[in-house]
C-alpha cells in the first residue's frame, strides 16, 4: 500500500457531497460557477485512490460519479439542445448546485455549533447530588410531571443492570424465572403503593437474568396500561405509578390479561 497523503485525508469525507464540496473549495471555485469537467476529473481521481487503498467505495459515491459524468456529457452537447432540455424540467446541474449550497449551509452551521462552549466538554453545571435515595414528597407532584420517552426508561435500566456483576462462583441455573413470575414479583413490590422508584423495583432480583425478566415484566405492565412512568427532574430518577387495579390488588384481572396474551402468542 502506497503512503500517499490521500490515505489520511480520504477517511475524512462524510459522503459524496462532502468530497465534492472539498474539491470545489480546493479549486477556489464558486458553487454557482462550478466547472463540471475539472471537478468530475478530480472526483474520479479520488475514487480511484479510494479503490487503490482498498477502501470500500460506498454506492452513494458511485451514484454521484454517474451524475457528474452525465453533467459533463451534457456540456458537450450543442447549446440549443441543452436549452430545450432545460425547458422540459429541472436542470440537473442547477439541482446539484442547490444540493451543494444547501449541504454547505448546514456544514457551516455545524462548524459554528462546534465552536460553542459545550456542556460537559467546555463548561460544567453542578452535578446532581446523590438524590436517588431521597424521593421528593408526593405532595410536590402538584407540579406537572415530566413526560419522558422509552429511551429514558432504557437509560434507567442500564443503570440497574450495570452494577450487578456476576458472582465468581459457578452455579447451574435451574432455568430462571418466567415473565409471568416476573410480573407477580413486580406486583408484590407495587402493591398498595402510590409510586415506586425504578431502582427499587429491582431489589428482589438477584441475577442479571432476573433483572432482565423483571424489566420485561415492567414493560409488559406498561403496555397493558397498568403502570405508567415519569421523572420529577430532567435526567433524574424514574418513578413508576401503578394503576388503581394494581394498587387495589386485582391480580386475578391482571393475570387474566396476561394469560389472554400468552394464549394469543401460542
Amino acid at each position, binding site marked *: 500500500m502506497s503512503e500517499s497523503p490521500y490515505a489520511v485525508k480520504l477517511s*475524512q469525507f*462524510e*459522503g*459524496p*457531497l*462532502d468530497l465534492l464540496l472539498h474539491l470545489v473549495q480546493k479549486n477556489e471555485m464558486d458553487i454557482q460557477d462550478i466547472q463540471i469537467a475539472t471537478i468530475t476529473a478530480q472526483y474520479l481521481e479520488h475514487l480511484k485512490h479510494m479503490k487503490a487503498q482498498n477502501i470500500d467505495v*460506498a454506492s*452513494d459515491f458511485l451514484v*454521484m460519479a454517474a451524475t457528474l459524468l452525465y453533467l459533463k456529457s451534457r456540456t458537450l452537447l450543442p447549446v440549443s439542445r441543452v436549452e430545450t432540455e432545460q425547458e422540459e424540467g429541472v436542470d440537473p446541474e442547477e439541482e446539484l448546485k*442547490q*444540493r451543494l*449550497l*444547501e*449541504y*454547505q*449551509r*448546514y*456544514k*457551516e*452551521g*455545524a462548524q*459554528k*455549533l*462546534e465552536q*460553542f*462552549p*459545550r*456542556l*460537559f*466538554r*467546555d*463548561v*460544567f*453545571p*453542578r*452535578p*446532581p*447530588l446523590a*438524590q436517588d435515595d431521597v424521593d421528593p414528597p408526593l405532595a410536590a407532584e402538584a*407540579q*406537572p*410531571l*415530566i*413526560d419522558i*420517552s422509552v*429511551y429514558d426508561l432504557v437509560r434507567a435500566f442500564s443503570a440497574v443492570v450495570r452494577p450487578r456483576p456476576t458472582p465468581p462462583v459457578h452455579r447451574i441455573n435451574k432455568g430462571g424465572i418466567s415473565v409471568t413470575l416476573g410480573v407477580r414479583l413486580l406486583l408484590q413490590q407495587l402493591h398498595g403503593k402510590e409510586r415506586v422508584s425504578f431502582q427499587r423495583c429491582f431489589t428482589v432480583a438477584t441475577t442479571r437474568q432476573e433483572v432482565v425478566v423483571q424489566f420485561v415484566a415492567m414493560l409488559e405492565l406498561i403496555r397493558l396500561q397498568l403502570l405508567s412512568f415519569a421523572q420529577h*427532574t*430532567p*435526567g433524574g430518577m424514574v418513578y413508576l405509578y401503578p394503576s388503581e387495579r394494581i394498587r387495589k390488588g386485582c391480580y386475578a384481572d391482571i393475570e387474566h390479561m396476561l394469560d389472554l396474551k400468552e394464549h394469543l402468542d401460542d
Partner: protein
Amino acid sequence: MIDLKAGVEAVLFSSDSALSMAKLEQIFGVDREELRLALQQLQHECQQDGRGVVLQEVAGGFQLRTRPEYAQWIMQLKRTRNMNLSRAATETLAIIAYRQPVTRAEIEALRSVDSGGIVRTLLEKDLVRVAGKKDAPGRPLIYATSTMFLEVFGLNSLADLPSLRDLRTDELEFESEMNFEPEEGEPR
C-alpha cells in the same frame, strides 16, 4: 439584611438544573423586575470579578456554569457525561436543529449518506427526540432537538441558533416554520 442577589446565587448554586424565572419568582416571592435586576447584577459580578463560574441563561432558565477556560481541570474529576460528537454527528445534529421537524430520509437526502446510526447516537445522548410520525406513506418518525440540546449548546431557545448563509432562492425561510416554544416541561 437579606440580599436578593446573594440569595439568588445561593439558590442557583444548590440547584442541579437550570431554574426558570417562574420558579425563582415562586421561591423568592418577589416580582420579576426585582429578580431580573438581581440576576443582572450577579451576572455582571461573575464577569467582572473573573470568577470560575458564570451565570448563563439556557433553555429558558438560569444556571451557574464553569468557565470554558477551566475545562481541563474539571475533566480531572472524571465524573461527567461525555458530550463529544464526531463531525458527522455534529453535522446531522445541525440539520435536525435547523430543519426540525425532520425525517431520517430528509436528513439523508441533505447529507447524501446513510444517517440511521448517527441519529440513534443523538437519541441516546438525549440531544434529539422523536417528535412524532409524519403524515406520509410509511408514517416515518420525525425528529426534533430536545431541551437537553439547548442546555448542551448554551442556547436559550432555538432562535439563538447561529444564522445560516443565505441560499439566494425563493424558498420559504424555514425559521418561520419553526416552533420556538419549548415543548417539554420547562426547567425548574
